[in-house]
């Protein structure tokens, strides 16, 4: 029997102006983080609809992280403030439904924080990997 190491699927939504650039900087500086992290570029973290997050879990993601500019630094002035409220409530609700709270995260990563981006992703992947596969929000049909 072949034992394959469990690799979580991680979807990272990154705002174009800060966090996506932060991820690029991590690349420029060759700061490694697990390949399980795949980034989706959005103009602003406030573009991330809770439906996208649930969709990711449905489709088999084990963790979803949203990265945006630090509060106060939003390219659009207020976008990440809305993100912060929306995700605070959404995550609290997911937790209330018994879904592991470690599977979702919001992190503010500036364009200068390549190191923070890599560290965040390393930590997040480790945390999610420790939880194992997402079973509570999965849709088995998708794994067909």
């Amino acid at each position, binding site marked *: 029997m072949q034992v394959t190491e469990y690799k979580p699927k991680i979807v990272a939504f990154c705002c174009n102006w800060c966090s996506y650039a932060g991820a690029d900087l991590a690349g420029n500086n060759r700061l490694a983080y697990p390949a399980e992290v795949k980034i989706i570029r959005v103009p602003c973290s406030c573009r991330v609809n809770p439906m996208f997050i649930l969709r990711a879990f449905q489709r*088999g993601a084990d963790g979803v992280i949203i990265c945006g500019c630090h509060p106060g630094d939003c390219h659009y002035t207020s976008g990440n403030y809305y993100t912060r409220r929306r995700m605070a409530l959404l995550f609290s609700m997911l937790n209330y439904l018994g879904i592991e709270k470690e599977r979702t995260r919001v992190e503010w990563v500036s364009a200068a924080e390549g190191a923070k981006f890599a560290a965040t992703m390393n930590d997040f992947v480790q945390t999610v990997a420790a939880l194992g596969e997402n079973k509570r929000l999965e849709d088995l*049909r998708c*794994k067909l």
Partner: protein
Amino acid sequence: MRKIAVAKLDALFAAMAKTHTVYLPADGADGRAQYTRWEAGVVYSTALNTVRSAKDFFFPQTENLMDFKMEGKSIELIDTRDEGEDFIVFGVRACDVRSFDVLDRVFLAEPVDSYYAARRAHGVIFSMACTRPAETCFCKTFGIDAAEPAGDVACYIDADTLYLDAKTEKGEAVLAALGLEDSDTAAVDAQKALIRERLDALPLSGLSAAAFGGDKLDEYFERPEWKTLSETCLGCGTCTFVCPTCQCYDIRDFKTNTGVRRYRCWDSCMYSEFTKMSAGQPRLTQLERFRQRFMHKLVYYPANNDGIFGCVGCGRCLSRCPISMNIVKVMKTLGGKNV
């Protein structure tokens, strides 16, 4: 007729379970009865009826039809039908038993719905007489006798004994294998008399469907009362989904990670998105959609099915409709004194 002590019900179910999967009404966490797969510890509920009807066994809310597997640019079709297993549904009330006839006339007519037919062939119905019919019951209106439920085996419970009466060969075969004690019919006859007395005393016992039927399209279709009846209808699907005879479904595709799963699921003619096709929904207003549902039960269905009504009087919609609108109110409003 056979019998067994109520105290030995568990043993009976265990015996049935050797050859069949057994489903029976059991009280759920919310205190309401739902059909539940029997296993040790599951207790038969004496509740009059389950929240969801028994049609689920033959026409479940969702059913996979087939899968399409896509690899690169190639497509493979996969039949997802499983063999199915023999099962017994125990404790089905007379109204729900009749609902199977109503569904059969749709799904078993040519072209036969093979998914439905397979489930039907595997199922054995143990019906249960209603000793305590509720004020919302009106099965009598549609010629159903709750004292004499149909099915493969008709059951009666008095104080401490369950009586089982095989009605079909299928039923007899199952009973025979269970090795039950024979019984006379005295207790059951007495119960039937009591039930009939109680049915006559129900508030809706006088409700008549005589004013309705397959030939009444012109009489009712344009009636102005539809407006007031439907005006506050929310357009939800509660009545449809708790109804034992509603049989509309939609076929849909779900995109999986490797292809497409084709499945069907219940649809409701009350929905504005009812089987939405490229041409759109033909019934544009809630009035039309509302009218459709009741006309179908009372006029269109009998027109196509030898005068049999599409309603079995189970009363579920009476207790579940969010606005307490229901077929009884519709019949009384439209039929006036004749109802």
